[in-house]
């Protein structure tokens, strides 16, 4: 998405120093000319990376939502779910990618499964915290209006839990952008594969790293805007910040 935005600009850069072949051969710190000439090769890996992240986070969100709804009225399930998702979270990502290989084979499927499993812990825990933080008065008011359990969940509890839920989504997404670079070890594509190909090429490494970091920031920004859009009635700053701090610092065992 980035590259397409600068494409018209690039077309105008006519006066270029053509001596950049030396830079590439000497593996210079950053060969700008090479980068300008070769930006196209990063378009596909970037798009693949975006797809990998979105698919994994959306799947993780749906599963975590399901688990949260299940455990919302059956409180005893909460420690079980937090424990299970926590164990997965302790396994280093590179191990998880490879441990799945005998079942799912090399490729993006394995990458998506591993990345999805990773997002569960953070998202699930935050949905539960969000639901717990709903003020009892709001719940009572809903009941007083004659809402059923399901209506209460949909119209009162989930909307009021959005700060925590979005805080969890933001952390999960940012982590997934980073972890997805390791998908290359499970035969996955994306920026990680491109990074792995340019281990001996500084310019390539800097470009892929830069794209990954920019992507993480862009996702984070989009989600924070999404939250404003979802819950415009909230004065978000203090509660949202508290939710993000809490989400960042807690671990499975503390939940």
């Amino acid at each position, binding site marked *: 998405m980035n590259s397409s935005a600068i494409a018209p600009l690039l077309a105008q850069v006519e006066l270029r120093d053509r001596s950049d072949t030396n830079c590439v051969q000497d593996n210079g710190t950053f060969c700008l000319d090479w980068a300008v000439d070769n930006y196209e090769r990063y378009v596909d890996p970037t798009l693949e990376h975006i797809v990998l992240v979105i698919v994994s986070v959306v799947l993780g969100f749906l599963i975590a939502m399901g688990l949260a709804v299940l455990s919302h009225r059956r409180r005893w399930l909460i420690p079980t779910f937090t424990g299970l998702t926590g164990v997965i979270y302790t396994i280093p990502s590179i*191990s*998880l990618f*490879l441990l799945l290989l*005998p079942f799912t084979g090399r490729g993006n499927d394995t990458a998506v499964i591993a990345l999805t499993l990773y997002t569960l812990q953070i998202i699930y825990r935050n949905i539960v915290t969000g639901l717990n933080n709903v003020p009892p008065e709001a719940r009572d008011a809903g009941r007083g209006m004659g809402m059923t359990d399901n209506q209460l969940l949909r119209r009162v509890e989930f909307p009021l839990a959005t700060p925590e839920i979005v805080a969890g989504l933001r952390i999960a997404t940012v982590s997934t952008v980073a972890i997805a670079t390791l998908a290359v070890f499970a035969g996955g594509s994306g920026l990680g594969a491109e990074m792995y190909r340019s*281990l001996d090429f500084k310019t390539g490494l800097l470009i892929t790293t830069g794209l*990954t*970091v920019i992507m993480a920031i862009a996702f984070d920004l989009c989600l924070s805007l999404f939250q404003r859009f979802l819950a415009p009635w909230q004065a978000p700053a203090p509660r949202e910040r508290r939710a993000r701090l809490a989400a960042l*610092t807690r671990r499975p065992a*503390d939940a």
Partner: protein
Amino acid sequence: MPDVFLTGFLGTFGDAIDFIFTPQTTRFQTEKVGGIDQVLELGGEHVKVTFLALGAAILIALPAGVLLGHYRRGEMVALTLGNAGRGIPELAVIALAAAFLGFGLENVVAALMILGIPPILTNAYVGVAQVDRTAVEAARGVGMRDLEVIGKVELPLAVPTIMSGVRTGAINIVATAAIAPLAGTLTLGDFIISRNVYGDAGVLAGAILIALLAIAIELGLAGLQYLLTPRGLKLSRSLSAA
């Protein structure tokens, strides 16, 4: 069909377990590879790199986080750093260290340290900043100075949160130490990265060993956390849980 699947599955994992304990001849290599001796050698290096990096990260991040938390300054710094820390691509850290700093243990340790700092700093900040103000005022009331307040009141009460950060940092570091061979330090990750030497059994063995090591370190640090947590804090927790 299920039989074929099951033997295939057991076969792969069986090979990996075999690889861990006895040296194997692979179709890729004439010399034997794997076996418990090599596992211990690479594992030792993995543990060494991990603890050096974790130690360095703690030395830098803990005092910084505790001081920020004590004066309740820099919430935005702590928050931004904690969030940004999650976004650092592990592969890039090692690859950039290898490309720009060169091979070598100290470069790997420096790179891994970067992954440990954000969670430790953020958690130290939050842990200290959220200590009950009445406890701090009471400490000042009995005449404690700043350093005593930090050492005797804020730090002990912040142990659970700080240790969570240390554990997160440790897990990041152990996990990323797996790709340290890309920067010339041979850890358990060598089994994974040099697939053409060790074969698929070696790759799977490496994945299993790294997962076990991570879980062991997590459990060890959880035990340490239990020992460091003041007794009163544990008591009040079990009371509030009951």
